[in-house]
């Protein structure tokens, strides 16, 4: 009984540590732990097992190949912050005007991004961008609910997709 449990644990851990990023994950979680405890080293008796557990027993398979290009993270975040503020101001302007010019539409957008993690990242990011909301991140088409007209939303989505592609180091075909 105990032996079987042990061997199950062994194969489980082997599955988890295979593939990329165990080391990176551990570093990332150690940084998070430092932030949580505000740098208290006495916490490591709890911290080390927790970091190991977080990195090794995640029931979901680790993501695909090296996802992010860290060097592009900074500029991307700046763009993200700017667009978030703009989208909040945009939606606020629609709320506040008595005429309530929301002009909603449902739009199908064919993906140019290839990898699943880049698509997921974008599908969720869209919800924070000006006038766009993901309804269904499908296999072929991304179905969106947009405010303020289709064309405006589509050009925004195209630019966003190019930025996400850059972040994930993906080549996507140019828009004709």
């Amino acid at each position, binding site marked *: 009984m105990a032996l079987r449990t042990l061997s199950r644990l062994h194969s489980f851990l082997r599955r988890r540590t295979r593939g990329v990023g165990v080391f990176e994950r551990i570093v990332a979680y150690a940084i998070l732990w430092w*932030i949580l405890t505000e740098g208290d080293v006495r916490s490591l008796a709890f911290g080390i097992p927790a970091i190991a557990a977080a990195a090794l027993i995640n029931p979901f398979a680790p993501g695909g190949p090296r996802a992010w290009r860290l060097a592009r993270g900074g500029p991307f975040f700046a763009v993200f912050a700017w667009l978030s503020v703009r989208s909040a101001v*945009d*939606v606020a302007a629609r*709320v506040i005007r008595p005429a309530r010019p*929301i002009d909603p539409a449902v739009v199908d957008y064919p993906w140019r991004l290839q990898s699943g993690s880049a698509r997921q990242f974008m599908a969720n990011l869209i*919800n924070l961008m000006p006038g766009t*909301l993901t309804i269904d991140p499908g296999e072929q088409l991304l179905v969106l*609910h947009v405010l303020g007209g289709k064309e405006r939303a589509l050009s925004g989505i195209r630019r966003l997709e190019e930025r996400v592609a850059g972040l994930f180091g993906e080549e996507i075909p140019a828009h004709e």
Partner: protein
Amino acid sequence: MTALAWVGASLVALGVPFFLLGTLGLLRFPDVFTRLHALAKADNVGLGLVCFGLGLHSGSLAHALKLALIWLLMVIASAVGAGLVARAAIARGVKPWGV
């Protein structure tokens, strides 16, 4: 009272209108999709300004990073949550207004 603390406090105050406008959208917009637009956008910027402002106000890096972590978690929750609710609403046959 340092200048940094004043800047921080003003950022916190600047966040409040976004919360109010988000709620106004919640009340005024005609269907669940448009309301999701209002909330996912306005509330996160509001909370972002509050967290950033309080971080500056505290003047401690570790504390500011913890606030940034809280904001990030809320952003993830509301971005993913908005998509989930929108998809569930479509699946239940809720028709978008004005389309």
